[in-house]
């Protein structure tokens, strides 16, 4: 079932700015929507408001079209996976997964069957009689998923579900969650500060910053066409170059790019350039181009990270495949010619 948040505002006592301010978005049914933002951006507050764990100061929450702003969490029929699992330590895995069913008065036999079904879904068959403390972090997280899904919730809410796990388990569980979603198709909202997680798992991304929604779009949208400088700098790595518009083109540290539409001459602009959108060639082959010096060169697996020093003293980070660099035959200290394949330019606000 879809989730719609309308003009949600929540202010905590003592907070300088609202935790969430005029937040609106629509999470379509059956899809994964990621709420992405740095810590303190209000994404968890929004998720908790959808679950009914936080009462909004203003605005509405609709689940499947039904206004449930004033409905207590017990009757919202949502599943919530907490950061750090929040499993009931005194209950076995079976007891944890069956908790919601027990609350609903489901008969023992039926409950056991449903719990078995879920343990299979989360690949924990045979772990039913264990206690949470006897499980690994990844297993505990899967129990939390099973517990949330047992009552067939209308919506699954995930609060930084993988934050407490180490990288390898996190990547594994991400693949597992994709698969899980393909099998259940339950509408899912995923709160995360990890852009990779958001871009990989979701069909829609809501980027939040300082309590406000900055952009809503597909993962490709927010990556390729960031709506604001914040989104451009937060999602993916980006070089920031500053300059001015001159004769319809933006001059940025020796580089020239097409100016954003409607920007007058003299307007200050800054450009966000992804490290893999920089093209380099040997300087001797393009004597007329913009030149730079390779100041540093780090190899990370099959990826090479270059740090280029432009004549304007700007630094440009460049990522390229190791094989590509080998083909060019470049090493540290050499002069290269630089070209920008793609960049996103913003006219700076005059206020600043």
């Amino acid at each position, binding site marked *: 079932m879809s989730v719609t948040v309308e003009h949600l505002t929540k202010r905590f006592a003592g907070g300088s700015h609202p935790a969430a301010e005029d937040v609106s978005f629509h999470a379509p049914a059956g899809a994964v929507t990621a709420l992405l933002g740095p810590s303190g951006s209000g994404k968890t507050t929004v998720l908790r408001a959808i679950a009914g764990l936080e009462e909004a100061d203003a605005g509405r929450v609709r689940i499947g079209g039904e206004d449930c702003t004033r409905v207590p969490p017990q009757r919202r029929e949502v599943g919530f996976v907490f950061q750090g699992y*929040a499993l009931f330590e005194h209950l076995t895995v079976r007891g944890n997964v069956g908790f919601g069913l027990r*609350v609903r008065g489901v008969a023992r036999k039926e409950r056991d069957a449903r719990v078995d079904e879920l343990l299979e879904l989360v690949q924990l068959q045979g772990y039913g009689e*264990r*206690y949470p403390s006897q499980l690994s972090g990844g297993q505990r997280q899967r129990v939390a998923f099973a517990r949330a899904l047992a009552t067939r919730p209308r919506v699954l809410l995930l609060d930084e579900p993988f934050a407490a796990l180490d990288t390898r388990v996190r990547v594994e569980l991400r693949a597992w969650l994709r698969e899980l979603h393909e099998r259940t198709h339950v509408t899912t909202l995923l709160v995360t500060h990890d852009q990779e997680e958001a871009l990989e798992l979701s069909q829609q991304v809501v980027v939040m910053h300082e309590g406000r929604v900055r952009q809503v779009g597909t993962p490709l949208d927010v990556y390729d066409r960031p709506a604001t400088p914040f989104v451009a700098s937060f999602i993916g790595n980006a070089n920031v170059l500053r300059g001015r518009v001159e004769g319809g083109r933006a001059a940025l540290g020796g580089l020239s790019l097409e100016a954003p539409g409607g920007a007058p001459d003299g307007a200050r602009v800054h450009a966000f350039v992804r490290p893999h959108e920089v093209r380099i060639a040997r300087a001797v082959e393009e004597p007329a181009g913009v030149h730079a010096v390779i100041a540093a060169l780090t190899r990370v697996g099959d990826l090479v990270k270059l740090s280029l020093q432009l004549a304007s003293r700007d630094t440009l980070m460049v990522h390229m495949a190791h094989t590509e660099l080998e083909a060019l035959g470049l090493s540290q200290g050499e002069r290269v010619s630089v070209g920008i394949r793609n960049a996103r330019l913003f006219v700076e606000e005059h206020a600043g």
Partner: protein
Amino acid sequence: MQAALRSVPLVRRGGVLPGYGLALGFTVLYLGLLVLLPLGALVLKASTLSWEGFVAAVTGPRALAAYRLSFGASLVGAVVNAVFGPVVAWVLARYDFPGKAVLDALVDLPFALPTSVAGIALTAVYSQNGWLGQHLTKWGIQVAFAPAGVAMALTFVGLPFVVRSVQPVLEDLDPRLEEAAAVLGAGRLRTVAWVVLPALFPALLTGFALSFARALGEYGSVVFISGNMPLRTEIVPLLIVTRLEQYDYAGATAIGVVMLGASFMLLLAINALQAWALRGRKR
């Protein structure tokens, strides 16, 4: 040089702080001197009685009545504390209100107050012309100089044990557990019964055991409010003192040995129950 270096083990077994042998040896010696030696002397003194003499000393009607009152009233006190102590702990752990620090300190008063003072105060309030007792008397309820008064005094001395056992556990209890229960559909009562209480249970048992044990040994507060009538309101510690005053040292220690054995068995049983409650949980 290299050989000398190699002879020093780089990794010590049992963690970075050594001294298992030393610490255990000290513990055994300390407990031996402080606890086992006097208790051994107690048993030794009691063994100067013949078996028949011992049985007669510990199963006389006066002794049996005293056991009944001591264990009964201590149990009542510990149960009352186990019910209301968590409520006090809940309020102290969960809410902020003016005067909280005062309330928090009040809980510890039974620890600090000489218990005889508490006994005198309770007697003043509950005796027939005390300002609560005179009203209760009209309803036919007698507290002072009755078993009810003994239970009252023992509840008083045991309260801090339950509160102070439960309070830190409540403070550490992850509020997300309650939220998880709520999202899963559990109302307040069920959340308390199925999530909060089971989490508190081991600590509650500890508090109950401490409160009960403290009540069994309590003397000062009870002697004032009980009236010390043999067969009716005489507790075991008082009976022991009475025997001592009659120079019946062996008889006094015989009753002491019975109390010792019974208390030890009870505490052991409570510990076993606690181990069961903590099954599967990390500690």
